[in-house]
């Protein structure tokens, strides 16, 4: 019994030592307008080693995704109202969003910001849709930091026309 526990703890130590160190490499929030380099990302690398190429379309998803695979703003009543009031749209690709608890975390953290008029997390597109209040602003670094508080990572951020899927 005790040997089993000791083996478990020793194995754990081996696993987490490099992990704990890498967690300290928090993302700066810079260069977020680039797309992620791959569908897989370790948390120690996800914001620091971006290579530019398109995100592949999410399997089985189409309604809030552009043909090039980039998620666009998910339209809900709340988001439409906020847009109608002159808010500016933002879409952020989020890594690790797989369940409703993830969505709740993002909703709670972003929804508590006074600059945010509407928020929605789409599990299909793995995208966070935000509409800022007309006078509000939220930097890329702030969005990245809020995502970390929720327990997740941002892979890319698109604003305004790009968030709506409108080609310039």
């Amino acid at each position, binding site marked *: 019994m005790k040997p089993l526990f000791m083996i478990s703890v020793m194995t754990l130590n081996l696993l*987490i030592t490099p992990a704990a160190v890498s967690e300290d490499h928090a993302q700066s929030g810079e260069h977020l307008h680039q797309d992620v380099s791959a569908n897989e990302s370790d948390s120690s690398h996800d914001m620091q080693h971006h290579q530019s190429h398109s995100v592949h379309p999410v399997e089985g998803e189409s309604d809030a995704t552009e043909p090039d695979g980039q998620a666009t703003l998910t339209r809900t009543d709340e988001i439409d109202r906020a847009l109608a009031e002159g808010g500016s749209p933002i879409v952020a690709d989020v890594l690790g969003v797989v369940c409703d*608890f993830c969505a709740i975390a993002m909703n709670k953290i972003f929804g508590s910001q006074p600059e945010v008029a509407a928020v929605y*997390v789409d599990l299909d597109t793995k995208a966070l849709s935000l509409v800022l209040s007309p006078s509000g602003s939220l930097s890329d670094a702030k969005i990245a930091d809020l995502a970390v508080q929720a327990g*997740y990572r941002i*892979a890319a951020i698109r604003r305004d026309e790009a968030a709506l899927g409108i080609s310039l």
Partner: protein
Amino acid sequence: MNRIVWAVALLPLLLNSNISTARPVSYTGGLTLIEESDRQSTSLLVHFTPAHQWSIGLRGEHNRNQDYALYTLHPTWLAKRWFGKNHQGNLYLHGGVGVATGVNGNPLGEDIAAHGGVMADWETRSLFASYRSRYLDAGHFGAQFAHAARAGFAPYIGKTGDLHTWLMLEIDHRPSERISMTATPLIRFFKGPVLLEVGYTLSINQPLINFTYRL
């Protein structure tokens, strides 16, 4: 609504873990209620997440087989989270220190108790796997090592806010028990802030009921 939530959470305490379950660390500022009930014990954990990498909670646990209760301060540390576009993996360390006290006429009185262990999980929107372990030293009430692994799948993929359903199988191993290994098929329902698991442990005919509510 609140009354219903509390009623559902407390129901399993009347029936009958308990090594800890889904998402033991929440978002910064999040509060979570976790009830777990398995072949041996029933527990209730309320935890608060001050920062995204750890939570602190109060845990009460009733060991039905040995008639004692545990009351511990229960920290959990998210040691590592792996992020992918379509998956998430987590590695947690959890522990606790407090007291064990006899119940239902158990004459053993009270003693200091401590527990610790590891949890790991990996999931996509349609596949799930997890492992968890715990070593408990309950003083003169005894010590126990327990660990369990799970695998499951979602028969359909729901959208945000839909009712999500998972079918899972849990294999639980407790070397000190007379029947050391058991299998529990279970079904998980997940909707918004509520997670409910209902299963049945074969070979010892005991229900498994787990409930989580995230505020």
